[in-house]
C-alpha cells in the first residue's frame, strides 16, 4: 500500500520540481520584470501545489495535512499580493504611487 503512496509522492514531487525549473528558466531568459513575474507565479502555484500534493501521502495525521494545505494557500495569496505590488513598482514610466 505505502509503495503506491511512495510512487505517487515521487511522481508528484518531481512534477513540481519540473515546474520550478521551468519557472527559473523563465526568470533567466525573459526580457523584462513583468514577464518574469508572470513565470514565477506559475512556478509558485503549480510547482508548490504538486509538491504539497506529493507530501500529503507521507504525512501522518490530518492536522499536519491541513497545515500543509494552509501553507500552500497562504503562499498563493501572499504571492499574488506581492506580484501585484512589485509589478506596480517595476512598471517603467508611470509613477509607482
Amino acid at each position: 500500500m505505502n509503495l503506491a503512496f511512495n510512487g505517487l509522492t515521487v511522481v508528484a514531487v518531481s512534477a513540481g520540481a519540473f515546474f520550478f525549473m521551468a519557472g527559473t528558466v523563465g526568470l533567466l531568459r525573459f526580457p523584462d520584470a513583468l514577464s518574469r513575474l508572470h513565470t514565477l507565479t506559475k512556478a509558485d502555484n503549480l510547482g508548490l501545489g504538486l509538491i504539497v500534493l506529493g507530501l500529503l501521502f507521507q504525512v501522518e495525521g490530518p492536522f499536519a495535512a491541513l497545515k500543509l494545505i494552509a501553507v500552500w494557500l497562504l503562499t498563493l495569496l501572499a504571492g499574488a499580493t506581492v506580484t501585484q505590488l512589485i509589478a506596480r513598482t517595476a512598471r517603467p514610466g508611470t509613477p509607482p504611487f
Partner: protein
Amino acid sequence: MAFDIGLAVLVLGVAVWTLAARDTFAAVIGFVTYGLLLALVWVRLAAPDVALTEAAIGSGVTGGLLLGASSRLRRAEIQAASEKPGATLRIAAVVLCALVSAGLAAIVLLLPEPAPTLAPEAAANLAATGLGNPVTAVLMAYRAIDTLLETVVLLLALVGIWSLAPDGVWGGFPGRRHQADAEGVLTFVAQLLVPIGILVGIYIFWVGSVAPGGEFQGATILAAMWILAMMAGLVDAPPVSRRWLRLLLIAGPAVFFAIGLAGFAIAGAFLAYPVDYAKLLIVTIEIPVTLSIAATLALLVAGPPERAPK
C-alpha cells in the same frame, strides 16, 4: 552537510550578484533573495527566532523599503553612472576586503574548542522568568534594558524621519496617497490577506513566550499588513499630529518603563519581576510594545509627512 555547502555557495552567489547588478531594482530583488536564503541558514543554525526576524525584517520590510526607494530614484541613476571610482581605489578596496575576509575566516577557525557559552546559565534561570522560550527570556528578563532602549531607538529613528518633512506640511499625512482601482485584483487580494496576516501576527506574538516567535516578529507582520492596506489604498496613513497615533507610538516604551520602575518596589531592582508574577508582567509589557513597534515600523516605511493636514 552537502546541503549546507550548497546553501552557503548560493548565499555568496546572490550577494555577489546583488553588488554586481548594474540596475538598482535588480540589486534590491537580489537583496530580498539574499535575506530569505539567510533565513534558511538561520534554520540550519538552530535559531528559529532569528530566522523569523531575518525573513520578516531583514529581507521583508527592508526589501520593501529599498524597492520603493529604488523605483523613486530610477530617474537619478542614469547621470550618476559616470562617477565610477578610479582603478587604484578599486584595487585597494579589493586588497583591503580580501584581508578582512581572510582575517575573519582565520579567526573563525581559531575560535576556542570548548566554546564558552551562557546557555546553561540561561536555561537554569528560565524558571524564574516563567517563560518557555529562552530567547524571549533573554530579551524580556535577563537583558530587558537592551530591548527597552531598542524600542526607544526605533522611536528616535521615526522622529528623525518626521523631522525631514518640509515645514509647510508638518503634522500632515506621511508618504504619498496610494491609489488602486476598487475592483482591481490588488484591492481584492489585499482585503483577503490583511485579516489573515493580522491573525498570524497575533499568533506569532502570543506563541513567542513558549516557542519560537515573539513581539518583534509579530509586530513586523502586523506592520506589513498595515503597509499593505496603505499601499492598496484601503486605508490612508494617519496624520502625524494625531494625539492617538503618538500615544500608540509611545505606549510600548512607556509601559516598559512603568513596569520597570515598579520593579523597584515589588522586586527590588529596575526591570526585575517577582518570580510568581513574572510571566504575567512580561506579557503585560509585550502587548503595548508589539503594538508600538508595529505602528513605528509601518510609519518608518511610510516616510516623512508629504501632504498637508486638512
